[in-house]
Each structure stands twice: as structure tokens, then as C-alpha cells.
């Protein structure tokens, strides 16, 4: 027996579709139009410039290119560092005990803070004169490694990546712990019977068995770090300092500088870049896991 679906069911989606269509999908389409103009955002008039904005963004905008380079450095450090750290912590805390429950809660804690709060914490850690990082180096007699951290143009973005990892590693640890709990205990028993040591157990049982969790962690971390905005703005100050520029802050800066049309063109490239990164990473995951 099949019953007809009541038409009233469609009405359930109407309020959400109206708001989401009107205030998300519609502006998303309008953005394409703004990108072909030199509009500043408030003047009554503007010129049509066609694809000029887009070609400028792609081919001769040094600030944009610098931001993109920073994005890629940040992405690489965060994805590698955060995935490795999250897996390490998960392996160490997967077994249930009072202590591990407490530590899991502690490691997850930074995730509930706001990006601006995390930015201030790390601003103080990195302060070249009064900061915790240099104070710690002094305390253990390693003061020759003192650094300017965020003040150092070439490496500033990498220190932001460290802050980002501190911020979200606990979140990804939880995903890994869920993955670890899916592994049947017998696999480890079998490996032990075969005389596998701890490292070999990890290499031949844990690592292949958490592949789906790894794919998830890498996918999410990739997107999250490519879109990072709040934390970087908090550390760079408003308006953002250019050594810390990534695409998201660059678009915001262009927009704040009343180049609305150009900023819209930058957003299109940004979106295309995210799509490309996601696609590449899906390809890589598929190749890696057959």
C-alpha cells in the first residue's frame, strides 16, 4: 500500500527556504554581478568593468598572491600538525579511565573559546618583550632562541598556525577517539600473537583502521584552516597587518577600503580556490585509500 505524500509537507520547508533563498542564495548570485563593476559600495553610480577585476585578482595583484601564499603555508602546517597531534592525543587517551576523561575534557576546552579570546592569549604568548614564549626560553637557558614571532614577517603566519592548532586539535582528537573505538580488540590480540610491538601494532592495525577518521579530520581541517579569519584578524589587529594576510582577511581589507566590486571578485576566486582545494584533497584521499 502506498499513500500519497500530503502536499502540506512541502509547506514545512517554506519559511526556511524564503529566508535562506532571500538572504543567502540571492545575495550569492548578486555577488557575481558586483564583481564585474568598480562599485565602492555607497556611490549611486559605478562603471561596468567586465572581467577586469577577475583578471587583476588572478594575474597582477601582489597582495592577493601574498595572501594566497600565506593561506597555503598556514594550511600545510595546520593540516599536518593538527592531524598528527590529534591522532597522538587520541591514541594516548582512547582507553577509558578517570584521568583520560579529565584530560580529554581539558584538551577540548580551547574549542569553546572565541577566536578573539584565543588571539589575545597567543598575542601575549608571542609578545617579544613580555611574552610567555620568550620568558620560557629564558627560564630554561635557551634564550638564544628568543624570537620576534608575529613581528617576523617571514615566519609570522607559521606562529598563527601554532595558535590555530592549540585552538582546534582537541576537537579533532575527539573525532579520532570515536574512530579508535570502532577498531575490534581482536585485531590487536592477533597482532600481539604475531609478536608485533607497539609501533608495529600502530603501523599495521591502528593507522589503516582509522583511515576514515583521518580522511574526515584532514577534510575538515583543510576547509577550516583555509577559511580562517577571526583568529588571524585578532592577532593581526584591525585593520589587519599585511604580513599575516590570508585570503579571508584580504577580502575584508579590500572591502573595508571601499573597493566593493574588487572585493566581490576576490571572493569569487576565494570560493574557486576552496572548491579546488576540496577537490584535490578528495582525490588524494581516494588515491591514498584505494
Amino acid at each position, binding site marked *: 500500500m502506498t499513500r500519497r505524500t500530503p502536499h502540506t509537507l512541502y509547506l514545512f520547508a517554506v519559511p526556511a527556504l524564503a529566508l535562506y533563498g532571500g538572504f*543567502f542564495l540571492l545575495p550569492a548570485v548578486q555577488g557575481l554581478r*558586483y564583481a564585474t563593476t568598480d562599485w565602492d559600495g555607497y556611490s549611486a553610480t559605478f562603471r561596468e568593468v567586465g572581467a577586469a577585476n577577475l583578471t587583476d585578482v588572478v594575474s597582477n595583484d601582489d597582495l592577493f598572491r601574498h595572501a594566497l601564499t600565506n593561506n597555503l603555508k598556514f594550511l600545510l602546517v595546520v593540516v599536518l600538525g593538527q592531524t598528527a597531534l590529534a591522532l597522538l592525543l587520541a591514541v594516548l587517551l582512547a582507553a577509558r579511565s578517570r584521568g583520560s576523561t579529565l*584530560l580529554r575534557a581539558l584538551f577540548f576546552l*580551547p574549542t*569553546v573559546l*572565541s577566536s578573539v*579570546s584565543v588571539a589575545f592569549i597567543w598575542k601575549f604568548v608571542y609578545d617579544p618583550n613580555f611574552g610567555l614564549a620568550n620568558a620560557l626560553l629564558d627560564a630554561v637557558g635557551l634564550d638564544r632562541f628568543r624570537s620576534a614571532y608575529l613581528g617576523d614577517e617571514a615566519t609570522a603566519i607559521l606562529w598563527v598556525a601554532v595558535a590555530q592548532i592549540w585552538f582546534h586539535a582537541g576537537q579533532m582528537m575527539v573525532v579520532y577517539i570515536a574512530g579508535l573505538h570502532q577498531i575490534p580488540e581482536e585485531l590487536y590480540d592477533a597482532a600481539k600473537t604475531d609478536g608485533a610491538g607497539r609501533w608495529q601494532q600502530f603501523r599495521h592495525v591502528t593507522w589503516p583502521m582509522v583511515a576514515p577518521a583521518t580522511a574526515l579530520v584532514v577534510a575538515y581541517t583543510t576547509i577550516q584552516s583555509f577559511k580562517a579569519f577571526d583568529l588571524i584578524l585578532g592577532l593581526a589587529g584591525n585593520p589587519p597587518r599585511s604580513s599575516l594576510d590570508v*585570503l579571508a582577511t584580504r577580502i575584508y581589507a579590500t572591502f573595508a577600503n571601499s573597493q566593493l566590486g574588487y572585493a566581490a571578485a576576490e571572493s569569487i576566486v576565494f570560493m574557486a580556490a576552496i572548491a579546488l582545494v576540496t577537490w584535490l584533497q578528495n582525490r588524494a584521499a581516494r588515491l591514498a585509500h584505494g
Partner: protein
Amino acid sequence: MARRLVLAVYALLIIVPLVVIVGGSFKTTQDLFAAPFGLPTRPTLDNYVTVLSRQNLLRVLGNSVLVVAVSVPVTLLLGSLVAFAVARLPRWPSRILYAVFAVGLAVPAQAVMIPQYVQFDRLGLRDSLLGLMLVNVVVTLPVAVFILAGFLKTLPAELYEAAELDGAGPWAAYRRIAVPVSYPSLAATAIFLVVMHWNDLLYPLLFIDDPDKRTLPLALLDFQGEYLTEYPLLFTGVVVASLPMIVAYAFLQRHFVAGITAGAVKG
């Protein structure tokens, strides 16, 4: 042994900065720089008085509470209605409806924020808490739909059919069956949305000009401009902005982990 060492080091990496921040909010600038790790020699509440009065932080706190208190229930209601439709509609209409919201998951806020800014400005919704609530609902609806539909789709159709045989329409099935059974999922989504809206900086930064309409993250960001390296004042702002979330996390830990992780994995 190595296990304990690694865990202890990482625990310190989390705890030490937090202790320094909280301790620092009770110190003078000189005290903080002289001994960042030490207890405050002469603990002072001056920083709290300063940020609460000069920055009008109570007002800001109220704004944040209001924005979250309105945006989250509205998003949950609209999202769960869509999720119910997705779960109950025939295959193709369901897929299309779902795909429309999936677009919102793929498109980053930065790609839509500029035209949204223009649109909200024209409608007189910019620089208002109402506009902020509206944009919050709109940008998080896709995640809510994703989580809630994901849950409802796993339920057997018989559950609803039993109710419908008794003559109940979809509205009754939604209210009497779908909502009650999805409480855990709704709770997880709610927590994800609360954390997300409470901590959001992007939209307040774009939409709010009036200092009286700022939310906490925006007010915090303004501190930086105002106080630059007066860390005790910055730390005080961090404590005020974070304390409600940390207290809630202490009591609802498991829900927080479930909510943020579900949102993350799906968002």
C-alpha cells in the same frame, strides 16, 4: 612513561596560558610583566571595573545573550521543519530540497558577505541586532538541516506511518513524533549554534557600527585598538567573554563535545 610525559606537557600547554590570563585579569600591568606566572601580589578588581564601565560591557553581554537567545531557537525550528520534510518527502523532491541547503554548506561566508552587506544596508537591517539575528539564522540553517535531517532519515518510516494511520497529519507527526525523538540531535545542534553565534566575529564586524549594539567578540576586538598592550585589560575581556561558555561546558561537557563535533564534521 613517555605517554605520561606527552600528556603532561600538552596539559600544561593548555593550562598555563589560561591560568596566566585569569591571574592577569587581577593584576596591574607592571605586576603582570614582572611575574606573569606568579599570583597577583596585590589583587585588584580595577580591570573589571574599567572594562565593565568604560566599555559598557554589561550592555555588550546583554546583546550577545539576546542575539543567541533569538537566533538559536529560530534556526532550530526552521531547520527541523526542513529536516522533517527532507525525511518524509518522496525521493526526488527530498533530494532537491536537501541539495539546495547543501549549497550553503559549500559556499563560505566570505563569498556572500559583501552582497549581504549591501542587501541588509538597503533594507535598513544593517547596524541592528535584528539584522544580526537574521543573518545568523540564514548562515547556520544549512548545518542545522544537515545534522537534523541526517538523524531523521535514519528513523524507520513505520514510526510516522503508525501515527498517520491514526489520522494524524504531517504537523501532528512532526510535533508528536519527530520533535520528541530528535531531542538528542536538537540538543547537539543547539549547542553547536550557541557556541558558533556567541563567538562569531565576522558578521558583527561587518554589520554593527553602533558601539551600543556590539556583541562580545566585536567589543573584545575593539579593546585591542583601545588598550593595545594593556594585557590585564585584554585578559579581563577574555575572562568576561569566555566564562559563560566555560561554565556551561563544565556542566554539559558531553553535549558540548557531541554538538561541536557534529557541527564541525558536517559544517
